[in-house]
């Protein structure tokens, strides 16, 4: 399963980077969203996908049966942060629409005297 997941993570990263390199602002933001999904799955896979029981202490479950809690804790933090970043990006994009009337990154480069 880890091998399949690794390939899937690579695919997510590829799609994310390709979207981020496009010239449309919304695609760039979608790309960052995909990138964080890829990163979360990467963290999860790194710790190993084994473990028969969720990491909640329960009667009759031995310590080795719990899923690895550390990646989960890291991912939980990362989900929230990526949400904050995505929302910020969205408002930023929304504002630049209103001010500049475009979401084409090719038209958003520098000032007039910037060659």
């Amino acid at each position, binding site marked *: *399963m*880890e091998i*399949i997941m*690794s*390939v*899937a*993570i*690579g*695919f*997510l*990263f*590829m*799609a994310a980077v*390709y979207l981020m*390199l*496009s010239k*449309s602002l*919304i695609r760039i933001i979608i790309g960052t*969203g*995909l990138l964080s999904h*890829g990163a*979360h799955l*990467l963290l*999860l*896979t*790194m710790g*190993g*996908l084994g*473990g028969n*029981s*969720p*990491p*909640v*202490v329960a009667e009759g479950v031995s*310590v080795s049966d*719990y*899923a*690895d*809690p*550390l990646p989960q*804790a890291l991912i*939980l*933090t990362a*989900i*929230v*942060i990526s*949400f*904050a970043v995505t*929302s*910020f990006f*969205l*408002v*930023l*994009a*929304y*504002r630049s*629409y*209103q001010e500049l009337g475009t979401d084409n990154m090719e038209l958003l*480069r*520098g000032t007039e005297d910037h060659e």
Partner: protein
Amino acid sequence: MSFVFLIFLPLLAALFIPLLFKKLGKVHTGWFVLIVPVALFIYYASLLPTTIDGGNLVSEFQWIPSLDIAFVAYIDGLSLLFTLLITGIGALVVLYSIFYLDKHREQLHNFYVYLLMFMTAMLGIVQSDHLITLYLFWELTSISSFLLIGYWYTRDRSRFGALKSMMITVFGGLMMLGGFVLLSIMGNTYSIRELIPQAPEMVSHDFFIWALVLVLLGAFTKSAQFPFYIWLPDAMEAPTPVSAYLHSATMVKAGLYLVARLTPVFVISGTWMWLVAGVGLFTMFWGSFFALKQKDLKGILAFSTVSQLGLIMSLLGASAAGYHVDNIAETTFKYAGFAAIFHLINHAVFKGSLFMIAGIVDHETGTRDIRKLGGLMSLMPISFTVAMIGAFSMAGLPPFGGFLSKEMFLTAMLSLTEFDLFSMDVWGVLFPIVAWLGSVFTFIYSFYFVFHTFAGKHKPDQLPKPAHEAPIGMLISPVFLALLVVVIFFIPNLVGDWLVKPAVMAIQPFLYSSPGEVDIHVSAWHGFNTELFMTLGIFAVGGLMYWTLRKWQKSYDRFPDSVSLNALYDNLMFLSDSGANRFSMLYMTGFIRSYLVYMFSFVIFILLGTLYLAEAFAFDVSNLAPVGFYEIVILVALIGSTLTILFSKSRLTAIIALGAVGYSVALFFVIFRAPDLALTQLVIETISVALFLLAFYHLPQISRKEERMRFRFGNALVALGVGITMTLVALSAHSQKALPSISEFYKETVYSEAGGGNIVNVILVDYRGFDTLFEIAVLGIAGIGIITMIKLRLTKKEGQHENK
């Protein structure tokens, strides 16, 4: 007494200057400043009896003990001589500046802060025994010189001159630092005193010649030797007190000091003697030759300073001959070192007075252009007298101090023809010839300076202001210096015993163990010898050429400006500026895509490179989780929705597909036994999709449809590279564990230590509580940012409305 702290006294005083300027503006700030150099001069003069007997004083405090860096003030004859020049001339210059700079119009607090900073730096250079702190003070003089040249910063020429001096002297300073580091590697010490005894062993070291050249680059740039002198004429944009102080009497002599101080270390090498004496003498000739091309009074003095510094430099080089001969007391080689120091004193005295006179002329007539000046003799009789004394001393006429050291200079240069090492027996004959030629031109420009300004026809219509004699306060300093010029002529041996001989002992410690052993008696009359005939020749030829100056001075204009050293500097500056600009424009395209491509390429490069170099790639199939049916279904959904994003034409589809990816990830969390993650992901994903829709879909002015993304090979390549890299990283990370995971600790202690059952939650709020705290902080910052942006829009809209 720990006099090492006195170095910092001017800097300390500088702290109070802005306050005094603001609060006591009625009194010229210079009066307060004057106390500092006068007090220091009196204190340092009280140390004279020690050095006259050949003694020395050391005072130090540790600065960075772990790096073996300390402030070590070492006072012997040489450093005390320079210290007295710095404080003595400093006091006179401050006194002069009080009348030169108007207290109402000038920013005196800036001026005096820079000046005091310079004083500390200069005292630090001449007293430091530690190479690293010497370098520190060395650069501080460059910086304060930069600030003082650019004092009238609204003028283009000031800023240009300031930058030019900074570029050249800091370049030299860095080279010198390299030389110092090599010296410390060879001698295993930063102390100059400890380096000197090791000189005989160091000379055969591979680094020796490099250290020598690098240190000399520092000295030559600072002391304006050919071809680095070009910054000095442009530095004349500084206020005249600064020119008199920094650019003739003290800072430009730091290079001479360095050469003198390190002579015992390098003296064994023939390269040292050739470079120092050769470059010095050539500079002397070059500077005096081009001084006659100048039309600006301070320009003439600048070139004359270049020339005189070259003269002293050549004497310091010639003094190296003393190391290589036996029984020096019976030869003429003994004169070079003495002459160098003696002329250094004379030059500081007469050049200081000449600069002050140039400032007075500028101040009282409004111009320094020698073509507009003339006939000021009757209007400014005191200034004229002072100028004449200074210039005659510079020209080497009796009865002025310059005559004595000039004679001795000729003696030293003649002695080189008898030196039979380092092919001097073949080329040594050039030295007296070039020295004689340089002296002829020195004679001419000295006369040119005085008589074109004060004699001839008065041209009142060309002067911006009607000329009159300067106020008495402004004349005190130059008159005092002019008196010194005459006094030195009559008591040369007193000056020799008190100041020169102790300093000579520091330059030539291998010859003398006490100043009394320096067997030189200065007298004005030596009988009819070669030097006297050379001097008479200088007077005759110089006088004749001055008489016909108007006929041949125009030929200077034939030197094209386009092939000068200044043009070289300008072109270098222009090329580096435009070159750097063009280079950065090459990759700073302004497209965000370009920057992302750089970053991602770098990520690929670093990660793959590390995987390869550290042999970290691993592939292990032994410890895999089983592949189940649901996993495959979710995976297909994940990949399908990702592909939908890539190929969709409509934004709505893309946003919903992104939501689908998020839900698939949440389902993965469910399957891989991460219930907290699954819950959080579901909530967050729902809000995200809503936000996306809100922000993009409901913006009316943007079309809801978007054309399909065109395929771009370059982007695809980078994306594929990142994808493959991440797959490899994921595989390697799973297949090996370099360290045991801390997870086991959490699992075992979560209930006993933290008293919680949900391990993930306990990690977040307990074990790694600060992480969570900062996570909340990030959320807060993002929230503030979002609110700000929305608020900004509202206020601006209102503003626009009002405008309408």
